[in-house]
């Protein structure tokens, strides 16, 4: 499962974009892990994520924290999205101090994540996964500017047509940019959509399209 790995963008666009996951291991520490996952989520919540969710329940923009906590089981994988490097450093310090016991994974620019770990006194990354990009019939993909938004949901639940529609709605005065990004975030059940980055990307999209060329 690699849904937080293939986010598109350059260093400037990705340096403040982090997805933090808490994952128990089947056959090792999964049995009875629900309280540990709750503890992990509480520590994350205290540090101010911009989005969070559990893919089987939803994210904080389409459900509530109480529902997410209430639906938690031993197989729940929770995910919190952060838009700020300093919060990640503090989060890692807190997790080092009070280990929840489940595996913790952070998707982000590897150099930045490594720096955060060092500042938190955690040493080196344990295991790393690289994206080697998209291969095959890449001419079928939407524009790169659209992909930057849609790839924030690694399950591909944010359609490029919906991004076009939101741009059109904003241009016609039917929605604000913030409303449009909230609508996009609702489609990404896991809570991986970074609304702060989403708003920045959306502002860049607005001048690229004319209303009649959109969905």
């Amino acid at each position, binding site marked *: *499962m*690699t*849904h937080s*790995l*293939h*986010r598109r963008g350059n260093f400037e666009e990705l340096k403040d974009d982090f997805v933090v996951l808490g*994952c*128990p*291991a*089947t056959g*090792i*520490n*999964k049995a009875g892990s629900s309280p540990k996952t709750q503890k992990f989520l509480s520590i994350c919540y205290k540090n101010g994520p911009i989005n969070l969710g559990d*893919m*089987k329940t939803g994210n904080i923009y*389409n459900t509530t924290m109480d529902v997410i906590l209430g639906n938690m089981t031993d*197989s729940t994988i929770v995910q919190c999205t952060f838009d700020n490097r300093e919060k990640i450093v503090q989060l890692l310090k807190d*997790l080092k101090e009070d*280990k929840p016991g*489940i*595996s*913790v*994974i952070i*998707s*982000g*620019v*590897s150099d930045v*994540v*490594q720096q955060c770990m060092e500042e938190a006194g*955690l*040493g080196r*990354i*344990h*295991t*790393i*996964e*690289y*994206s*080697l*990009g*998209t*291969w*095959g*019939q890449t001419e*079928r*993909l*939407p524009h790169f500017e659209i*992909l930057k938004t849609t790839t924030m949901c690694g*399950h*591909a*639940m*944010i*359609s*490029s*047509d919906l991004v*076009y*529609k939101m741009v059109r709605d904003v241009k016609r005065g039917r929605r604000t940019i913030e409303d449009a990004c909230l609508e996009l975030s*609702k*489609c990404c*059940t896991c809570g991986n959509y970074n609304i702060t980055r989403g708003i920045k990307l959306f502002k860049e999209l607005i001048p690229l399209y004319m209303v009649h060329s959109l969905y």
Partner: protein
Amino acid sequence: MKADQDKCIACKRCFPYCPMGRIQIFKKHENIPGRVYIEIDQERCTDCGVCLRANICPVKALFQPEMIWPREVRGILSNPLIEFKGSQVPGRGTEEMKTNDVSGRFGTGEVGVGIELGRPGIGAYFKDVEKVAMALMGGDIGYELAAENPVTHFMSDKTTGKLRDDVLNEKATSAIIEGKCKIEKLPEALKILEKVAKAVDTVFTVEVITKVPPEGEIPVKPILEKLGVWYSINTKNNMGLGEPAFKFYEDK
């Protein structure tokens, strides 16, 4: 996913939510003169459920019919809310590197290679998934499939990567092949993928996983750089905080 023809008013509000694009057509109601409804192309729909979850239909016409084999593989792979019982993980893949700090799944000298077909936003038929799986398994690189991965479960021959015939024409939003091989076989694995990329009618993302040693260079980086293979600055990183920690190295 289907739209109830007696409820649907063809307002088109659900159209842009579909990750597979414009897969709906207008139909005339058989019994109500002048009434138009939309029909979702069942061949192209992957049962991901995003249109239903968006709660956008003003007359609640969208519904997910019960899925029977082999169509049910669409929902298993495409709807992130459905947990595949074989992997015990919601979503399309496995725990892979996420729990490597406690499982030791990817040891020193090994590299995880994952290929996710159909992503982002194109979708993939299992006949293309089979092409990639068979190319890797036939490549004599010792590629070891992840046993708990849903695609592995759909194989009729796990030694060749052959999928069951009845799933070949099914489609998923994306389907991921997961496995590992020795790190020295990575160049050959990537060469195989480069070749098969020309034979599939979709896109796929490629990812590689490696244990980071306590000191020194990350083992796959010089290999990728020597091959001239692009890799993203954005990575997924296991923090090593899981307990009990897997012992990768002998205690000194």
